[in-house]
């Protein structure tokens, strides 16, 4: 009997690499962390905590702009992947730089928003509503910060010419993380700011 007979390959994940599957797994776990925070906020609100109407405390036009900014960075991130898949290394560096700058601007606007709230005595301990707002948006902000650092690392490698039309898996994995940050913000913006 031939001991080296190969087992028929029936890969349920297709061409997805281990790194990509690892990132998807991380996204599921991280998504559940955000779900925990949002569900807790919803439960506290339904339980009778004092909750201001949309726009009464939070600056919706400014945050809507921030949401638009994050959408733009998702676009530039996917364009970075599109560029390197075609072997365009300068395009990769250019779009990664745009994405990183967009992320930094997002954080800057969020910091500016926090500064004004703190100046007006709307701090973490003001109310349950304030706690839910700060904890959820801070948790997201840390993700954006992590994403910016992650982009900076990949950008450095891109500038050294590491990536090419045959080697772009790390850029795709970075893209998954960044799009997830955008995807979660869509839900945070809707639940914390608009509802």
């Amino acid at each position, binding site marked *: 009997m031939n001991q080296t007979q190969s087992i028929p390959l029936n890969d349920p*994940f297709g061409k997805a690499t281990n790194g990509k599957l690892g990132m998807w797994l991380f*996204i599921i776990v991280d998504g559940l962390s955000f779900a925990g925070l949002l569900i807790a906020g919803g439960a506290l609100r339904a339980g*009778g905590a004092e909750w201001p109407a949309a726009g009464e405390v939070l600056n*919706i036009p400014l945050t809507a702009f921030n949401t638009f900014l994050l959408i733009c960075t*998702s676009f530039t991130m996917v364009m970075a992947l599109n560029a390197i898949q*075609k072997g365009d290394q300068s395009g990769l560096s250019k779009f990664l730089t745009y994405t990183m700058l967009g992320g930094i601007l997002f954080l800057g606007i969020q910091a500016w928003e926090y500064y004004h709230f703190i100046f007006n005595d709307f701090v973490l301990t003001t109310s349950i509503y304030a706690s839910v707002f700060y904890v959820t948006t801070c948790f997201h902000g840390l993700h954006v910060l992590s994403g910016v650092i992650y982009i900076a690392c990949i950008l450095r490698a891109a500038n050294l010419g590491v990536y090419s039309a045959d080697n772009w898996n790390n850029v795709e994995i970075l893209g998954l993380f960044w799009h997830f940050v955008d995807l979660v913000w869509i839900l945070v913006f*809707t639940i914390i700011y*608009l509802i």
Partner: protein
Amino acid sequence: MDDHKSIYIKNAVWLAVLTLLEVGVAFLSISRMGQIVLLFAFAATKMMMVAMIYMHLRYETKVLQWILFIPIPAGILFTIALMYDIPFSWVG
């Protein structure tokens, strides 16, 4: 490789339009429940657009798609379970 640039641009434009509509709905004088349903519908649409087009989920296998989508109804179930006792606190 196909150039998906135009799809990515259209997706970004639609995401921006849906964000504007969301902000509009938040200030619309309709019933509270109608507002919540509309806002969640817009958010779910936007999230699907990001996942399917920008994260290329539509090109992944069905198994991976199921693994990612199954936690969503589970989350809704947990929310309902968590809020089950809230009406009792209103009475008390």
